[in-house]
């Protein structure tokens, strides 16, 4: 597994492949080499920079997108493997200029500070709410365990998800 032959590798020219992706409802055709990950394709080729690339090893969850409805870390997904699939990114949550209920709740509950983890948090939370419209705190914690946030301390985020699912807690003023 750990051997590599530089000459053989230099001779290998992996050709680009054309991949059709349905990004936020719109079909896009992109040509990618096999080594291009989905987050690189979304940011650099499709041009949607809402999805963030951070650790690029599946640890931080900032690059979470919904791939055929499943929350996946797009840094560990090869773009060539997504041919014919539906990708939803944070840009797809809004209706024109109007924010979704979850995004409004994030604003209201102070769930955004530096904002770098927010696109991933929103996508993970969206996937959770689609599967379980009334999650309890523990379920939310478990669903967001793969999204790291270094600013908020998570309570605001969990409160926002609870509020977006209609289980509002009284806000401390």
């Amino acid at each position, binding site marked *: *597994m*750990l*051997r*590599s032959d530089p000459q*053989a*590798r230099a001779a*290998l*020219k*992996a050709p680009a*492949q054309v991949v059709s992706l349905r990004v936020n409802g719109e079909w896009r055709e992109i040509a990618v*080499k*096999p*080594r291009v*990950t989905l987050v*690189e394709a979304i940011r650099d080729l499709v041009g949607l920079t809402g999805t963030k690339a951070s650790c*690029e*090893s*599946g*640890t931080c*969850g900032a690059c*979470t997108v919904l791939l055929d409805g*499943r*929350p*996946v*870390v797009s840094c*560990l*997904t*090869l773009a*060539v*493997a997504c041919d014919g699939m539906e990708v939803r990114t944070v840009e797809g949550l809004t209706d024109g200029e109007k924010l979704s209920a979850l995004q409004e709740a994030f604003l209201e509950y102070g769930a955004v500070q530096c904002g770098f983890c927010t696109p991933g948090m929103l996508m*993970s939370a969206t*996937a959770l709410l689609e599967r379980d419209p009334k999650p309890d705190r523990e379920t939310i*914690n*478990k*669903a*967001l*365990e*793969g*999204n*790291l946030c270094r600013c908020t301390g998570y309570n605001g985020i969990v409160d926002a998800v609870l509020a977006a699912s209609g289980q509002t807690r009284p806000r401390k003023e």
Partner: protein
Amino acid sequence: MILFDFGYERAATAEEAVARLARLGDDARLLAGGTDLLPNMRAELAMPATLVSLEGIACEPPRALADGSIRIDALTRLADLERAPLIAERLPMLAAAARAVGSHQIREMGTIGGNLCQETRCLYLNQRHDYQFAPPCFKRGGECCYPFPRNKSDVCWSVHMSDVAPALIALDASLEILGAGGTRRAGIEDLFSGSGLRPLTLGPAELLRSVTVAPRPARWGWGFHKSTVRGGLEYGMSVCAVALRLEPDGRTCAEARIALGAVRERPLRSPKAESLLAGSVLDPARLTQAATAGAAEANPLPHHGFTKRHLSDNLKIYLRRTLEQALSRAREEEGAC
């Protein structure tokens, strides 16, 4: 960002994947969920020339066979395993083990076959090598094992971190392995070689196709515990999985299967602890004695910054608690019968 080029081929069936592997030779790897292989490729620990993707292969949901055993396709994603009603009802231990893996996203991507076939880990090996110079250790083609420099230079002491494997070992699962010459069956313990260099016994052109768990006997109970620092998104400090079967009197143990994960180069059984339990009355003193024996014979390798002393103490305590869990479940089930 993966910094080297590689080819990508899709296989439509498992047989085709094996045929492609046989044709491409040593430089090809199978790609299922990718949550273990792609980070390793990014760190250039694995540099396959070609990936054979399994995404196009149809994966059937877990189903009960005529003899009552449960067949799980190796391509079943861990999140689907965790949610499958059949698994929740008949093999709750496996659902708990699947839920313990990684994060929500990792479980939505990773498969049960991939979890069993993951690479072993070591802090030295898994550090980033592309922007800093760290002399390559034995597993990367160097001359020495740097974390254990006084050891023989042909032994790699990296740790197999699977959470699902101990549960499947406690459940005595069997595997269906597809090779160029056809299908063979193997016990799950035979999958692991015990060597950090090549942790699996799979041949170069073999594919793990399914996992089968035999029906559970009466009066059995299970216990599963993964010790972690944060409670999510991390490799286990230690993983304890226990299956106990009681005699009709409800006090004596008929059979015990103990499997420990994240301790050595392979998931381990604890034969001494098992023999201390089998045939004896399970009182708290006996469980403590068995747990102490289990921790001693596991002889854990230090990993992820935890010392051997810490891991041994951890095993002593959590193996006892897992045994208690299994015992109380076995008694509950007896009460329900």
